[in-house]
């Protein structure tokens, strides 16, 4: 369980002046779930992480302590997850690699559209 996650979740919520109840309402989660995440009693799913990150307008990578900027958007090279993606792609054929690159590009475009 990442220590950064519980600290960053609490700090991001506090910085926005939101109570656990308000964050729970905004994400559709139970208030107890927010409390459990912040005390490290429960590890979030990707779905939880996405809802929390969207509600707090930060990136998932920031919540997980993988980057220090609250916002994602420094390009693929700045995203540790994307670096993993490219290591993963080493096992693919040239065609598969191209498809994977295309998927990453499409995801990036989605991210940019969300910011507009």
């Amino acid at each position, binding site marked *: 369980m990442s220590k950064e996650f519980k600290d960053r979740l609490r700090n991001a919520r506090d910085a926005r002046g939101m109570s656990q109840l308000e964050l729970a309402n905004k994400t559709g989660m139970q208030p107890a779930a927010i409390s459990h995440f912040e005390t490290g009693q429960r590890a979030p799913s990707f779905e939880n992480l*996405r809802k929390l990150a969207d509600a707090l307008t930060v990136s998932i990578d920031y919540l997980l302590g993988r980057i220090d900027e609250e916002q994602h958007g420094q390009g693929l090279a700045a995203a540790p997850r*994307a670096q993993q993606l490219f290591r993963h792609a080493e096992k693919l054929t040239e065609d598969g690699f191209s498809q994977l690159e295309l998927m990453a590009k499409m995801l990036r475009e989605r991210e940019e559209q969300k910011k507009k």
Partner: protein
Amino acid sequence: MIARLRLKEIQSLARSKLVEYKSMQLPVNPKEFAREKLDILVEPFSTPKKDVSGFLMQLGNSFAIGYSTAITSKGFQNFTVAHELGHYFIDDHAMALLANGRHESRSGYISKDRFEEEADAFATEFLMPWVLVEPIIRANSGGFSTIKAIAEACESSLVASAIRYTQVTKECVAVVVSHDGIIEFMTASDSFKQIPGLDWLRKKDDLPQNVPSRRYANDSDWVRSCVDEHDETKLSNWFPGVRDRDVEEDIAGLGSYERLLTVIMTEESNDEDTDEEEESDDYIDRWNKGIFRGKR
């Protein structure tokens, strides 16, 4: 092996997601679910390595699921996407998969990794929720025909459907998946597991020599042709330690998955009573010989 309580939690999670997103009806379409309900990009990819069946990608706050087209079965691809949804929904998978550096899935019951097993369990319930599968089982005559009916109604793979069937049926049935005559795994219904003297077939064991499945095991053309055969044999041909009885054996080639699916079905065991009597006789015999008294 997933603990029973954890398995129930994961099955409950899968059902709750179907209800939450108003998708509790057959066939569940995991690709459409991911795209339309979760705004996840879902795309096929090609790779010569068939042991990488799918992956979950995260970039910023967006997600994508890739599924391999190396195995052409729609049911297998559905299972792969549902498996990746399992990684997406199950608590603590995010931390674990990211901590591992990269994540590539081997869906399809072969992996022994805890996270892969949990994602398989999620996918099984998600594609074949008990409340919707139970009427299919009631409406069919049992065995392989029921498994095919589940696969057709749920648009799931034959293997996944067979495993689902063994989890819920009261019939005495076992499922064996093999590749080139080598066993990859075996699973069985509770009733089958209670057959006295059963020696569980293990991963990497050879298929027994005298069983009908053996005839097809190394015939790659037959395996790739997606056909099935019905035969009969003796249970002791599969499990030498058991009291003998007739079994029905259904064998199916799984196409580009290149595996052989064998479904073994027999009458429910009546051996328990006899064994209890024998154990009782044995106990009295040993008592009379003073074996227990001698321990004092």
